[in-house]
């Protein structure tokens, strides 16, 4: 009988060392990939920490744009968008829409007149299973050029150092145009009068396979009545949701969805840079808000208006924001859904 190859004690020891190195090396590579060895990596978790107020986040709520009110309606696509994207949502037709008017604050109790940035989350679902989700704000440009810059802004805004914002603004000259808008632009007394801008650039692919870099906006059909922040401070802290609820009761509200196409060379990677006014702009349809829905127990609560949920025919561009937002919104969603017990769906007591 042949003896199996006999191993000397020495080679056995060597084998165990080799096995140990393989296992430890794999574990180390895994830890590195997970970011455990890189405390400087900007993780979604760190972004959420920077967003949270000093007293901690409002458990169960969105970690930003925490205050809002849900609606349902339809998106009436007029078919003009089909020249830009083959997404079925831009083919002529009427598709269910779900959305949420909201305020850019991590505090669900904030008084409406204290919040400069207003937003809208929107999900349009054509019948074939495709989905278009987007979250837009009323500012004409974003505050910073990069997600890293946004993190620095949050740190500066939350800092106890009275010079922090000054230091930030000097390091981020691109902040100036957003700053000027925040300071000087008129306010409105209603979500219905706000224009919402997607700000981020995306790539549309049309039926022939040609790509178009685009940004989109929602233009209100309602007459805009400019007011000052001081006017609004006299109103109820929740005047926005009360007003919109009233308004929708007396008839549906409309916004025109426009898609603006970049010229070659227009900045697509930087949402602080507006494109020149003369760029080709296509009206692709109308958002019709038909019903205001509950916030705590309505259909928006469980939706993450993740800007990378796009139908075939639309995709992200070299703009770094949608990816960063998707990652951070997912983490926010993980946390708030796990904290559902801290934010009851039904408000105790008799309903009005």
């Amino acid at each position, binding site marked *: 009988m042949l003896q199996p190859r006999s191993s000397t004690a020495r080679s056995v020891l060597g*084998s165990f060392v080799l096995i140990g190195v393989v296992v430890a090396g794999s574990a180390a590579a895994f830890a590195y990939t997970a970011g455990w060895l890189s405390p400087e990596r900007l993780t979604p978790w760190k972004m959420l920490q920077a967003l949270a107020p000093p007293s901690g986040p409002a458990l169960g709520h969105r970690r930003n744009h925490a205050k809002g009110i849900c609606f349902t309606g339809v998106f009436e696509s007029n078919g003009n968008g089909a020249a830009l994207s083959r997404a079925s949502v831009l083919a002529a037709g009427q598709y269910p829409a779900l959305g949420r008017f909201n305020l850019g604050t991590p505090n669900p109790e904030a008084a409406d007149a204290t919040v400069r940035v207003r937003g809208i989350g929107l999900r349009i679902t054509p019948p074939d299973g495709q989905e278009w989700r987007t979250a837009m704000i009323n500012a004409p440009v974003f505050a910073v050029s990069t*997600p890293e810059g946004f993190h620095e802004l949050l740190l500066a805004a939350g800092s106890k150092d009275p010079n922090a914002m000054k230091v930030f603004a000097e390091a981020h000259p691109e902040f100036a145009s957003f700053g000027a808008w925040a300071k000087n632009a008129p306010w409105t007394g209603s979500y219905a009068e706000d224009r919402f801008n997607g700000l981020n650039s995306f790539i549309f692919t049309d039926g022939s396979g040609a790509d178009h870099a685009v940004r989109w906006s929602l233009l209100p059909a309602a007459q805009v009545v400019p007011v000052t922040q001081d006017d609004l401070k006299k109103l109820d802290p929740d005047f926005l949701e009360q007003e919109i609820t009233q308004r929708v009761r007396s008839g549906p509200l409309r916004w025109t969805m426009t898609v603006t196409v970049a010229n070659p060379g227009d900045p697509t990677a930087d949402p602080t840079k507006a494109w020149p006014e003369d760029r080709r702009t296509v009206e692709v349809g109308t958002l019709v808000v038909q019903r205001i829905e509950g916030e705590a127990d309505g259909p928006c609560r469980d939706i993450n208006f993740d800007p990378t*949920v796009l139908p*075939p025919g639309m995709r992200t561009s070299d703009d*770094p924001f949608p*990816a960063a937002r998707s990652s951070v919104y997912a983490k926010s969603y993980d946390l708030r859904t*796990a904290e559902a017990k801290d934010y009851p769906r039904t408000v105790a007591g008799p309903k009005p």
Partner: protein
Amino acid sequence: MNAIRHHFSPLQRLLHWVMAICILAMLFIGVGMVSTIMPKYVPLVAIHKTLGTAILVLALIRLVTRFYYGAPALPADLPEPMKLAAELSHYALYALMIGMPLLGWAMLSASAYPVELYGGIYLPAILPQSDSVRTLLWNAHYYLAFAFFALILMHAAAALFHALVRHDGVFEAMAPVPIRDEVTRVEYTAAE
């Protein structure tokens, strides 16, 4: 004496190594994507969902081949506790290969996310939206991912132990390329 086999069938070996690479990639992509906000987040998530679904399909095929071809017996002289550990860990690996993708898919369904794969393929939702269910599934996907990685490390250590220390033909049975199998042949004759 023709029932005793010393190797897994070529199809089983192919599946084993292709899946080994895919699963390791999935674990690294998983922990990498959830810790970044860089542009690569979007393609990483798309790869994670697509490759994860491919693993589910491959795992089901593999299960069928396992029932059809069986597996070579472990060496007779392997201590009982080691045999038991080998068998249990193999059950666990199959459970995870099938369970992890199902958990991921179910988690996205319960989150009311569309489950879109590369190529514009949409998987149907397999669960209705639910906070509590998605949290449960998220936790399972998360903790089992680490258990999966630990199990794979143990599995690899054991395979190397067979290959380098015991020289007992167990590694060769699943080796990616046919390796001369003097040792097993010897044991085979000895066993007769």
